[in-house]
């Protein structure tokens, strides 16, 4: 117990007054001859024991009144004997207000509203000679003002504070708060922590914060903890992840979404509703059962009517913390692509036809590509602008006007795929198409004749694959092994990079020769495969990797695949975007109106912005305000922040090394009502009871 105004304790000597009056009051009573003395004697005998008790009660009540008033005026507060021995009287105070996601929890009223009341109450409870400051505990905590007496400014800062969407590091905030008191001339320091005390925010394995004394020595401040959760648990469930993947087996543009739901409470929940929203409209509904402190997954699917960017949101039945019950993802649903397959080596036998495997791959179920196969003569008569991508499969050297048309087609945003074969004359191709290819053709290398008996062992193989490229992203794990085991009997070799052209090598043979080359030309893209797409020079067409490879090549050539697909930052993280050459993103905007500026990274590394302040879908706009739809992304709440498991007050007291933990409701002393108020109330009640007893 410590006292703010210990001098008032001298007033407790007044409690001796009733005893002194009892001992020294010797007034002589008036003598009255009375006829009915027998009745007086009888009454006195009858009431003697009751009167004795009454006199004792009166004595106690009077003593209580005279004791409670000076103690109340001395402004008592709880503290351990250790703290009380060194920290008495006024203290410089720093009030730390937690803004973690947990403070958004609420049944009717959010905990943060209570936290603000508690912080203001703590501020009001300080005596006039106690300097104070407030630290709103955010990702970058700083004191609202230097420690001083600007109460109005501190009150305003508390009023303006808002809860965040992540688990804030309270230990850091306490350090900042402790340091903010270093400049105070007062020897006593006090930290008031207003928090929900979640384990995600406060690490008790760390050392409690220390301040610096007037001579630079370390000083342990007095701690007062105001638990806004009133010592209760904060049950919560959250939608912590959404995994989206294409589901071609369900039809074109079909996707399935696997939602991961975690129950952080100690009670199981049955039939929790889960909604699937596409662009804000509910399209599917499901239910999940959640074990106590368990995790469940639920998969819902949806087939998009058309391609384009879509915002998909999973939304759980709301609980006391609704902010983590929704989880969004921004998808790029492939649109229907039209492809012109130019068959350079047609054959009536399908398995010998140059275009057979490619057409089959692009026309498979779930493929976004609508392919048209033409021989070279017919193809040159086609209007190229009607197609998204043109695939030249082992084609003779195109006429000059066709080569020019192909160049214009690519520069305008079209995609060009080139595979070689025995019909491709490198010199003639270089002369006509050299300016369009990533690298000029050199010669054709034969690793082994396909017909030889040991061809399968002597054939060339892929050794390196650029798995970070969108085309190659699916080839991880066993899929990568399948791709790398492809045999190449014969393949084209290429010259070095042409000047001014950036070429990406997505795969190389075991001799280092490129197998896949990609480059951008104008608004379009070019992809070159160094072997054949039939079985003449390679067995790639009959491998399982061929189908997804061709579909993703078609997607990349038309710009429907890009790096944005993996942009899923958490709240508090920095977002990095890779815009196309013709895009200049300037801002990211949330539906709530929040904005984050995007800045360009050096060496064409894209743009970056953040940390992201809130969850949900975000749009990206350029400097003119035009929405760059394909760069949109979704921000998620970290699952750790949704875990609202709390520290016990005992553990907290052990950590702080003193018994100064208070709660704002049941489970401990009422922190919003100071102790002196109770003492004064007790004095008034005792005074009233004393009067009542006297009247009887």
């Amino acid at each position, binding site marked *: 117990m410590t006292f703010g105004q210990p001098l008032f304790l001298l007033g407790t000597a007044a409690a001796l007054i009733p005893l002194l009056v009892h001992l020294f009051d010797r*007034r002589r*009573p*008036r*003598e*009255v*001859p*009375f*006829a*009915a*003395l*027998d*009745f*007086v*004697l*009888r*009454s*006195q005998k*009858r*009431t003697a024991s009751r*009167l004795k008790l*009454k006199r004792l009660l009166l004595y106690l009540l009077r003593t209580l009144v005279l004791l409670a008033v000076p103690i109340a005026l001395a402004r008592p507060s709880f503290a351990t004997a250790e703290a009380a021995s060194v920290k008495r009287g006024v203290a410089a105070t720093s009030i730390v207000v937690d803004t973690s996601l947990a403070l958004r929890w609420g049944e009717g009223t959010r905990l943060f509203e209570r936290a603000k009341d508690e912080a203001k109450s703590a501020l009001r409870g300080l005596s006039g000679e106690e300097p104070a400051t407030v630290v709103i505990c955010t990702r970058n905590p700083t004191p609202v003002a230097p420690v001083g007496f600007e109460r109005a400014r501190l009150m305003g800062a508390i009023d303006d504070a808002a809860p965040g969407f992540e688990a804030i590091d309270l230990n850091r905030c306490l350090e900042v708060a402790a340091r903010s008191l270093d400049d105070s001339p007062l020897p006593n320091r006090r930290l008031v922590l207003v928090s929900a005390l979640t384990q995600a925010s406060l690490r008790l394995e760390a050392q409690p914060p220390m301040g610096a004394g007037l001579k630079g020595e370390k000083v342990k401040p007095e701690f007062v903890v105001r638990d806004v959760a009133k010592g209760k648990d904060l049950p919560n469930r959250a939608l912590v992840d959404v995994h989206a993947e294409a589901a071609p087996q369900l039809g074109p543009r079909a996707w399935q979404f696997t939602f991961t739901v975690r129950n952080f409470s100690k009670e199981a929940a049955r039939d929790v509703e889960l909604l699937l929203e596409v662009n804000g409209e509910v399209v599917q509904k499901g239910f999940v059962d959640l074990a106590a402190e368990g995790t469940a997954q639920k998969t819902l699917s949806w087939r998009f009517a058309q391609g384009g960017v879509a915002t998909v949101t999973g939304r759980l039945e709301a609980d006391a913390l609704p902010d983590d019950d929704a989880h969004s993802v921004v998808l790029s649903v492939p649109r229907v692509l039209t492809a012109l397959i130019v068959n350079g080596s047609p054959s009536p036998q399908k398995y010998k036809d140059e275009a057979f495997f490619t057409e089959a791959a692009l026309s498979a179920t779930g493929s976004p590509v609508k392919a048209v196969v033409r021989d070279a003569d017919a193809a040159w008569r086609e209007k190229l602008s009607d197609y998204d991508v043109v695939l030249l499969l082992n084609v003779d050297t195109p006429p000059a006007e066709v080569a020019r048309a192909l160049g214009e087609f690519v520069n305008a945003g079209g995609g060009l795929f080139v595979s070689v074969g025995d019909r491709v004359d490198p010199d003639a191709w270089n002369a006509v198409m050299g300016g369009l290819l990533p690298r000029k053709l050199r010669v054709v290398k034969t690793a082994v004749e396909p017909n030889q008996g040991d061809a399968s062992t002597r054939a060339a193989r892929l050794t390196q694959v650029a798995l970070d490229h969108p085309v190659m992203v699916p080839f991880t794990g066993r899929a990568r092994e399948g791709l790398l085991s492809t045999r190449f009997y014969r393949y084209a070799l290429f010259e070095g990079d042409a000047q001014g052209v950036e070429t990406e090598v997505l795969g190389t043979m075991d001799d280092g020769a490129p197998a896949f080359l990609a480059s951008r030309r104008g608004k379009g893209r070019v992809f070159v495969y160094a072997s054949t797409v039939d079985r003449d020079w390679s067995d790639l067409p009959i491998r399982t990797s061929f189908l997804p490879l061709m579909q993703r090549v078609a997607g990349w050539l038309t710009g429907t695949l890009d790096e944005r697909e993996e942009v899923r930052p958490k709240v508090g993280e920095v977002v990095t975007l890779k815009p196309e050459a013709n895009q200049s993103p300037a801002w990211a905007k949330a539906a709530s109106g929040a904005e984050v500026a995007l800045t360009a990274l050096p060496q064409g590394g894209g743009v970056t912005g953040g940390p992201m302040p809130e969850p949900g879908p975000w749009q990206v706009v350029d400097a003119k305000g035009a929405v760059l739809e394909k760069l949109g992304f979704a921000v998620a709440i970290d699952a750790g922040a949704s875990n609202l498991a709390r520290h016990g007050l005992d553990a907290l007291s052990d950590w702080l090394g003193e018994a100064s933990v208070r709660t704002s409701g049941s489970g401990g002393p009422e922190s919003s009502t100071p102790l002196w108020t109770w003492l004064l109330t007790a004095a008034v009640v005792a005074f009233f009871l004393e009067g009542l007893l006297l009247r009887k």
Partner: protein
Amino acid sequence: MLLDAATLSRIAGLKFRARAVVEGVLSGLHKSPTHGQSVEFAEHKDYAPGDELRHLDWKAYGKFDKFYVKRFEHETNLRAVMVVDTSGSMGFGTSGLSKLDVGRVMAATLAHLLIKQQDAAGVAMVAQGRFAEIPPRSTAGHLGAILDALETASPRGLTDLAMTADALAEKLPRRSLVCIFSDFFDERQDALKRILALRSRKHDVAVFHLVDKAELEFPFEDPTLFTSMEDDRRIEVNPREIKESYLEEFNRFLEATQNACRAADCDYERVRTDEPIDEVLLRFLGRRGGKL
């Protein structure tokens, strides 16, 4: 002067009527329930052995040849004794008059009225070990003796109602009216019973229970040392603390006394020392008139 002229003038307008069971001698006012010697013929009855021969009506024998005995109306005088308690507690009073003052004024008033009606009145003043009596007489000069005796009485000693009852039973041979003026503060359990036992000896008993306002209301506030008026007992109490209990005890005592009197068929009149004495007497006399 004990007798208040205004009080006496108001009482004089009423006729004092005794009960049928009390004998009286004044003609026209008090009829006797017994037949006796008189000049006024009442009726004849058949002679029976044992009747006095001097009452035989010889004229009737001449006419009817049967023996008849003559019977006469027997007029009587009322004998009344005013018993006044002169114990120490009767000296208490907070309204100007002590209980003894009020008791002797009432006794004197009633004696005056009775003697004026040719009835016999006496007085007895009692306390522990003392019994001073003036026997009942109906002469006008007797009133002075009664008043002198009452006037010289002073309060002292313990109340002894039992001794009073025994002395009256011995000294009152005929049916009499016994008026008792006392506060009945007698510690013995059977004291009141023995007083009321006079009623079983055919006496007409009227109880005047004298109480003071302070005894009824216990108006004391500050710590007080109460001393006894009959012995040397004393006690210091805070009156506010015991007031409720005292009033409860005292009212229970008043109720018990009143109920005992009514059960014994005795008249009971509670007299506060601060109320007008004539009103009390008129109330008493009026109630007795209703019984006749």
